[in-house]
């Protein structure tokens, strides 16, 4: 089976290959860890200042390298110097740094089943056709190869086309089988003057370089279009997809201008047993929010100056890594890219913040709710935001004084509130939550009946009196 990766625009990646199930969540976040939430989602890093944009597309493609292919609409022709192959570790580091706090691993999304792409059996034979004949065919289809490069382990073509039918046919005949129904979307991009960045793996180069996994591709260009095309990826897609976007900017937070950008609920007290189910918790909470907002919003998961963090899910990225990911403006600034660039963790930099602000956006999208490509703007908002969930361990020693008794009584209210918060955030059954809380050392007396006697105003006057 041929596996294809369709990347949309400068980026929305639509994973077009069935992926292996990810390993289950296996622990609570401790200081240094590889944080992978929704780890089968597309990941894109966008660094931008003015019209200068660097987009890094990371793929967690795990199939055979020979079967990998991607097609990305880009605003301009890209020269060889504008392409760089970087390391997965960089994107993973950024992912870990911006991940919701205290989480190490996350369950894969069972609803986010990647779209299988069957390859026509005859396609391989088509490749053996004579080169000259192929050239004629390409011309007759109105497809122009603007440039052709081998960079790292990838063979890359920059295509332009006169009309979508020819492009679609050419892609199909050259093993880039586009999804059924891609024609109108390709036509729209062609009319908007977009080019197509097309990549396959060069197996010889891959063997020579000895790279085990496919590495992320960075593309640098200048364009007023601050966007991520997601439309190609939604054509014929099998259900909604997730994309996590990391923006590196000089000033402040990035938001979408044609869809609502909402902050995910954060800074909430949740029951202690959540520690062991943090991955499932975060996933359920995300799903509940998506459902509540009708799958019409993009969610802010992190916004912070790259110089520090509190608490840190991973160390901030040093300047040289940020430059590698496209923060080119650091080359002109006082922070030398070769230097450490960041302050010790949990500390504010004494000389003012670093010149990189990171925004992490998470979107679950499909063609119905997200018919249009994602458009963005950088705002002047440099305030901090992070997904942070708080576990509060109660005091378990003897409490013999009156304040201690009051504390114990208040604990019940607190536990009830934590249970309600968790149920509200995740949609989980509150009875099950209470049961798990009891097992985890947060027992509750009988749940209060809403509007019932337990909460009555007169109980507060005579707390010592028991009901008959």
């Amino acid at each position, binding site marked *: 089976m041929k596996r294809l990766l369709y990347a949309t625009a400068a980026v929305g990646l639509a994973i077009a290959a069935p992926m292996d199930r990810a390993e289950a969540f296996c622990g609570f976040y401790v200081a240094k860890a590889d944080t992978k939430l929704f780890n089968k989602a597309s990941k894109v890093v966008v660094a931008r200042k003015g019209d200068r944009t660097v987009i890094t597309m990371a793929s967690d493609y795990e199939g055979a390298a020979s079967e990998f292919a991607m097609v990305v609409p880009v605003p301009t022709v890209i020269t060889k110097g504008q392409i760089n192959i970087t390391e997965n570790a960089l994107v993973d580091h950024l992912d870990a740094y911006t991940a919701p706090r205290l989480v190490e691993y996350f369950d894969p999304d069972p609803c986010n089943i990647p779209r299988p792409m069957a390859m026509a059996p005859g396609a391989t034979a088509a490749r053996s056709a004579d080169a000259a004949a192929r050239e004629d065919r390409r011309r007759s289809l109105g497809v122009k190869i603007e440039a052709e490069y081998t960079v790292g382990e990838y063979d890359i073509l920059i295509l332009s086309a006169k009309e979508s039918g020819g492009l679609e046919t050419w892609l199909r005949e050259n093993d880039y089988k586009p999804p059924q129904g891609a024609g109108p979307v390709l*036509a*729209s991009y062609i009319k*908007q003057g977009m080019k197509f960045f097309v990549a396959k793996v060069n197996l010889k180069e891959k063997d020579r370089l000895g790279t085990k996994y496919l590495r992320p591709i960075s593309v640098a260009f200048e364009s007023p279009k601050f966007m991520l095309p997601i439309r190609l990826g939604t054509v014929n897609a099998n259900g909604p997809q997730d994309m996590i976007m990391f923006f590196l900017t000089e000033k402040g937070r990035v938001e979408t*201008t*044609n869809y609502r950008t909402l902050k995910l609920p954060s800074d909430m007290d949740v029951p202690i047993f959540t520690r062991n189910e943090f991955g499932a918790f975060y996933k359920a909470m995300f799903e509940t929010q998506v459902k509540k907002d009708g799958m019409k919003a993009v969610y802010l998961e992190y916004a912070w100056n790259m110089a520090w963090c509190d608490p840190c899910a991973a160390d901030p990225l040093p300047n040289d890594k940020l430059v590698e990911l496209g923060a080119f403006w650091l080359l002109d600034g006082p922070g030398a890219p070769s230097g450490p660039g960041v302050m010790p963790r949990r500390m504010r930099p004494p000389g003012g913040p670093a010149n990189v602000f990171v925004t992490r956006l998470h979107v679950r999208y499909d063609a119905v709710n997200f018919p249009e490509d994602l458009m963005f703007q950088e705002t002047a*908002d*440099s305030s901090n935001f992070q997904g942070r969930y708080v576990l509060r361990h109660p005091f378990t020693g003897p409490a013999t004084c009156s304040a201690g008794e009051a504390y114990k009584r208040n604990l019940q209210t607190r536990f009830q509130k934590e249970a309600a918060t968790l149920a509200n955030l995740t949609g989980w059954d509150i009875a099950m939550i209470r049961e798990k809380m009891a097992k985890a050392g947060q027992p509750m007396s009988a749940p209060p009946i809403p509007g019932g006697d337990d909460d009555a105003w007169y109980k507060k006057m005579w707390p010592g009196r028991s009901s008959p």
Partner: protein
Amino acid sequence: MFGASSRLQSRSLPTSAGPGSRCLLATVRTLDPRYLQIASLGILLTFGLGWLGFDQSLINVSVILATILATQLVLGWIMQPGRAFDPLSALISGLSLCLLLRAGSLWVLALGAILAIGSKFFLRVDGKHVFNPTNFAIAVLLLFTDLAWISPSQWGSQTWAAFLFACLATMVLSRARRGDVALAFLGTYVAVLFLRALWLGDPWAIPMKQMQSGALLLFAFFMISDPKTTPDRRGHRILYGVLVACLGAWIQLGLYNPNGLMYALFFLSPLVVLMDRAAPVASTDRYAWSRPSI
């Protein structure tokens, strides 16, 4: 017994309610339309802050409103001594700024409020102020600084129908006689969206989504239709609405700038002066808040 009583009630209800409701409607229509606009904007702001999670705090709102009223008071006292303090227009500008303008610092919001009222007092030609105060403040801050932004998508598209209803109701009830420019603008803008989709071969879902925007309606019914900064003649107003829509769409869709409509209105506002000079109307025919239905 029961039947007789029912009949009596059913007969008496229309005769007692009819004149009452007509009276209420008449009262609303003769009222200064700014009261209705303030009520509408206030409701929208409450909804945005309370339910839609607007990125605007109550402190920000207080700073904008306090600054704008204080600026109106001070400049009115200096520039138009002897005239009574009229907070209504300033309040409309202030509420519009609260709905639209976002900034990282409080002083930028205060500056926006000062720019808005300042433009009203200092940028005047032929007895009219040239720019819509809110538009002027936002456009200047967006064009010349990197301190502020607007969030055109903050309304989402789910509340669009209710929003449209509220805007139309306000327009009809206030009889501000500037519905023509709002409708000309909206009609043209929506037509451009659909024609573009037709040309690109895009699904209708795309222009539908672009059209279902609270920011677009707010712009149409509360900014471009400001009676004080639109041409005096109806033909000119319609032309003006069409031009703003075309320029705005081009900046937004052609230059990929999400603030296209704000810039289009800002750049085309001086055209109103030229239009009014080309075919002047008698000063008694000019728009006055006290004579909304003339």
